[in-house]
């Protein structure tokens, strides 16, 4: 049994683990409880290597070294350190250990130290090349990334729009606005503003609209509504722009005569309120006291709707049906488009409200209780495809 490793001072579990590691490379082991018992055993049957647990006193290591020098000069010693420190390691090596290993023992460290120690003493008990085990960290990161991607994917799925067409049970829709998952709808006939919320869910059915609140206006009939962090704004049939307090009857905070004679859209860009006039074709930006700060001429003549979404202000034109967007660039604004919607809505249908939400354009149609939608990207792509075709010609 010359090519065996003597394990000294390890508990049962550690012995089992070490045996397994050595067993995998066909190296026999023998366990002994203490360095003293090892010193009795070594002269009778010298092992190829002694793997010893760090003794309480380093004197025992010195004694072991003397014993090995006398009876087994070609036997190397490796010492395992419970709390590895440079000084303890160097002291142990000075007293005869070839190398010191940190605990818990790693298979790779143990095998390479065994191979090197024994070969430096003129023996070789592990022949195969020892390869550093593949690091698991990249795999763990990969699994983590996959899990995150899956969660994001599921979240994206759950967070999708409720449906491409939504029934709102009112034929008098006068203004619609998406605000994250909340849909604000005005009804000019019943003088109400309804807040719906699109539920989250994996299936279309579970992503249905639920009514969150119904507010009846005491004064005015809303033809346009816009919810902002600063309150609710409406434009009534009397052409008054009102800011409302959140209370029963939506009491007015402020009222002004809206500029223009045919207001067709109201939108909040995150900082300011905007309106558009279908007659003059002007867009108006307001400050918090509803004073007009800025006017912009619409790219589309006779605009029929206004909405904010995807970082732009979108303007709808109904004759022909098209949209354009006003994008803020540095200090000014730039118009993009127009994008044609001719093939989407039948010519006889007149849009009564417009909203942008979930990356889609939503339209309320005259005399219709449902709102329909179309993906903005498809609208923009259609325009670029048309442009490309035109260039080829």
């Amino acid at each position, binding site marked *: 049994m010359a090519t065996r490793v003597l394990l000294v001072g390890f508990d049962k579990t550690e012995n089992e683990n070490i045996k397994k590691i050595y067993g995998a490379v066909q190296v026999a082991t023998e366990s002994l409880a203490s360095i003293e018992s090892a010193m009795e055993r070594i002269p009778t049957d010298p092992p190829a290597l002694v793997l010893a647990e760090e003794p309480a006193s380093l004197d025992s290591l010195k004694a072991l070294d003397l014993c090995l020098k006398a009876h087994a000069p070609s036997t190397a010693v490796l010492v395992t350190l419970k709390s590895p*420190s*440079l*000084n303890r*390691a*160097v002291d142990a*090596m*000075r007293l005869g250990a*070839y*190398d*010191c290993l940190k605990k818990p023992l790693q298979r*790779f*460290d143990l*095998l*390479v*130290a065994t*191979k*090197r120690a024994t070969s430096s003493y003129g023996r070789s008990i592990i022949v195969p*090349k*020892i390869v*550093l085990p593949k690091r698991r960290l990249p795999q763990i990161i990969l699994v983590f990334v996959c899990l995150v991607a899956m969660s994001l994917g599921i979240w994206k799925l759950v967070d999708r729009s409720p449906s491409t067409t939504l029934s709102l049970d009112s034929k008098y829709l006068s203004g619609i606005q998406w605000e994250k998952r909340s849909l604000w709808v005005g009804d000019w006939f019943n003088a109400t503003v309804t807040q719906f919320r699109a539920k989250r869910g994996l299936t279309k059915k579970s992503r249905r609209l639920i009514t969150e609140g119904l507010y009846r206006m005491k004064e005015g009939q809303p033809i346009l509504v816009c919810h902002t962090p600063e309150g609710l704004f409406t434009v009534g049939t009397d052409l008054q722009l009102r800011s409302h307090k959140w209370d029963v009857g939506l009491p007015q905070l402020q009222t002004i005569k809206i500029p223009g004679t045919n207001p067709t859209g109201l939108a909040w860009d995150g900082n300011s309120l905007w309106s558009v006039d279908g007659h003059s074709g002007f867009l108006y930006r307001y400050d918090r006291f509803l004073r007009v700060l800025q006017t912009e001429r619409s790219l589309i003549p006779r605009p029929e709707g206004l909405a904010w979404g995807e970082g732009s202000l979108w303007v709808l034109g109904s004759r022909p049906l098209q949209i354009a967007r006003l994008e803020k660039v540095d200090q000014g604004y730039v118009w993009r488009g127009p994008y044609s919607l001719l093939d989407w809505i039948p010519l006889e249908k007149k849009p009564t409200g417009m909203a942008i939400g979930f990356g889609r354009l939503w339209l309320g149609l005259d005399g219709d209780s449902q709102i329909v939608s179309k993906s903005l990207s498809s609208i923009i792509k259609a325009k670029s495809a048309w442009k490309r075709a035109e260039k080829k010609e």
Partner: protein
Amino acid sequence: MQIEKRKIPRFTTSVPVGLRFSKGNEKEGWGRILNLSPEGILLETRFRLKVAHVIYVSFALKDGAKFDNLRARVIRVKYEEGYFLGAVAFDDIVDKQTLGDVISALAYEGGIRVS
């Protein structure tokens, strides 16, 4: 017959050496000096050595001469199955006196000249 071409001879030995690293995750480690000269040492260690890194080496010779935290620079590294063989040159910080001490200690050590 091989002729010693080095200006300063090296001595083979097997002396434990303590290592302190200025960079990397490990702050300290240990290894074994395989040969030494007043210019530097060749050591083996399971702790990662990288060329150009500064390390601090501590070792004691058999005559009791002790060298603590000698600033040195790794100039060459070879990897052999879990062990790094590193050629390490003492930095300028090691003064003439220390170098003299090493040489005299080596004489006591009775190392074998490498040719």
